[in-house]
């Protein structure tokens, strides 16, 4: 693959029409909440964009993020993006293996020093020197620190890379941490989700390709264009929540009528993602539309939030036992101190000696 090709040249070579290209630019502008007037600017920028080198590091992950990104059956935005970048290292997709693969990575790092995009999925284990995930004899921690040095920016794809994800769930046996816990001197874009919506990943890449900058981020480093609203605020079932119409079980009348899933554990109110608007599988559906509450997969520590089917107000640990002990302890202490006080007063009364005038001198 000639790395000096522009994106425009790549697309023409692949037979993608000008019309198809402009459709993609329009979709990108709309996804990033930009006005239609930006479309010619995006088209002009992408046309001339040189394919940036992208190194994809897979650490303690399930490969779900790659699956999400590559599950496309027709020319889509995702496909176009993959054509626009030079993916120089990716465990699942690369043809090379063994030392050849590692050499490819090192070659790309050297050739594009300071300019390549680093995409990370999976958390980084740190306990016991990080030995719980190694590639080619190097721990994930070492690989990340080494590769991040020459990166222009880092995209932490998936909740594992962004916040620690499932490996970090209690009791976190491998000491798993997020990318931002290791690298603090490079711009990091967190594209959280388990997995993230494919369009979100490609939207971030498109922004970088078009403008060479990272998009506006929220306080967790996630692009505001996709993580600015909660699922709750954009849910099509919101009016049922407001009217107090809830499904009580998964197959009752309320569930069949499509009522709110709050009582069945939906974490929509505390989850920021684009599922309710962009949806999944090219806009087919999303969990709530399919009858299952959101479980907050784009938020930190969602695995430890007390269970997917416990509603937000519910207690997440069993307090019955502790409360029983508390009542017993309180009763015992109350009785003990009460009786002690009663005895003390009785003794004070019986040992009271009346004062005489002589005592006052």
């Amino acid at each position, binding site marked *: 693959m000639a790395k000096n090709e522009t994106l425009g040249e790549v697309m023409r070579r692949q037979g993608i029409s000008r019309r198809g290209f402009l459709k993609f630019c329009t979709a990108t502008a709309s996804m990033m909440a930009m006005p239609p007037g930006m479309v010619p600017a995006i088209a002009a920028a992408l046309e001339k964009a040189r394919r940036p080198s992208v190194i994809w590091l897979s650490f303690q992950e399930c490969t779900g993020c790659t699956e999400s990104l590559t599950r496309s059956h027709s020319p889509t935005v995702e496909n176009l993006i993959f054509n626009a970048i030079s993916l120089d290292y990716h465990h699942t997709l690369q043809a090379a293996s063994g030392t050849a693969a590692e050499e490819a990575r090192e070659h790309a790092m050297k050739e594009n020093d300071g300019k390549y995009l680093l995409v990370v999925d999976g958390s980084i284990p740190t306990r016991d020197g990080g030995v719980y995930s190694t590639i080619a004899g190097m721990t994930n921690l070492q690989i990340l620190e080494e590769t991040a040095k020459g990166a222009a920016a880092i995209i932490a794809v998936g909740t594992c890379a962004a916040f620690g994800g499932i490996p970090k769930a209690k009791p976190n046996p491998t000491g798993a941490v997020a990318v931002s816990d290791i690298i603090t001197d490079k711009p990091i874009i967190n594209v959280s989700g388990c997995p993230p919506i494919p369009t979100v990943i490609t939207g971030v890449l498109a922004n970088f390709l078009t403008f060479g900058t990272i998009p506006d981020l929220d306080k967790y480093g996630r692009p505001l264009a996709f993580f600015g609203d909660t699922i709750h605020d954009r849910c099509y079932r919101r009016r049922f929540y407001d009217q107090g119409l809830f499904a009580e079980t998964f197959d009752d009348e309320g569930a069949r009528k499509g009522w709110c899933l709050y009582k069945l554990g939906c974490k929509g109110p505390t989850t920021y993602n684009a599922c309710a608007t962009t949806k999944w599988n090219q806009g087919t559906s999303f969990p709530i539309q399919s009858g299952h509450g959101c479980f907050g997969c784009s938020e930190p*520590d969602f695995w430890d939030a007390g269970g997917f089917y416990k509603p937000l107000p519910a*207690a*997440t*640990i069993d*307090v019955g036992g502790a409360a029983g002990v*508390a*009542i017993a302890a*309180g009763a015992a202490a109350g009785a003990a101190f*009460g009786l002690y006080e*009663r005895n003390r007063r009785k003794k004070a009364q019986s040992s009271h000696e009346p004062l005489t005038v002589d005592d006052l001198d």
Partner: protein
Amino acid sequence: MTAAELLNWARGPGLQISLVVFVLGMTYRVLQNYFIGRKASLAEARGSQWGPGIETVWRRSLFHPGMTGKGYFTLIAGYTFHIGFLVTLFFLAQHIELFKSLLGFGWPALAEGLIELLAVLSIAALVAVLVDRLVDPVRRKISDFQDYFTWVLTVAPLITGYMLVNGMAMRYTEMLALHILSFEALLVAAPFTKLSHMVTIFIARWYNGAIAGYKGVQS
């Protein structure tokens, strides 16, 4: 600590700790008073204790003939606040889910719009009594730190709850954590402050009625 971690703590260990302190503290307080006991009255009983006791619990809730303007204000503001607070606590659908998880059973909820209205009136009543406490020279003089502190503890869950439902000021996760923590603070402080009246008030009223009933008079 992220907001998500704080929320998880508030829904888990925080809730457990605050409930344990509340239950232990209240049980201790009530039973200690019971076991200290009363001085035995050596006089002959002129009437019963239990009946007049229960009657007094009821009678103290009513408006008395000959009440002054100040008395009316206190009673109306007091009822507005207490009814609003208790209806919000026990009849909002989201709160019933909490009770369901603690007790194993729930009950029908009231419309959220109605509860929002009652909550606002409740906050207004609390502000009114605070202003009265600050403006009235006698009340101001006898008020101490605890009086103001418990006022803050009481109004905080109402205000944070209202803000949460209306998406004000903060993100939902932060606001929900704050709301839960504010109520947990109330629970923890209750056994150690005058807020313990939520359990002891009926015992105290009964006790006063019982003493009077023993003497053969109405309290």
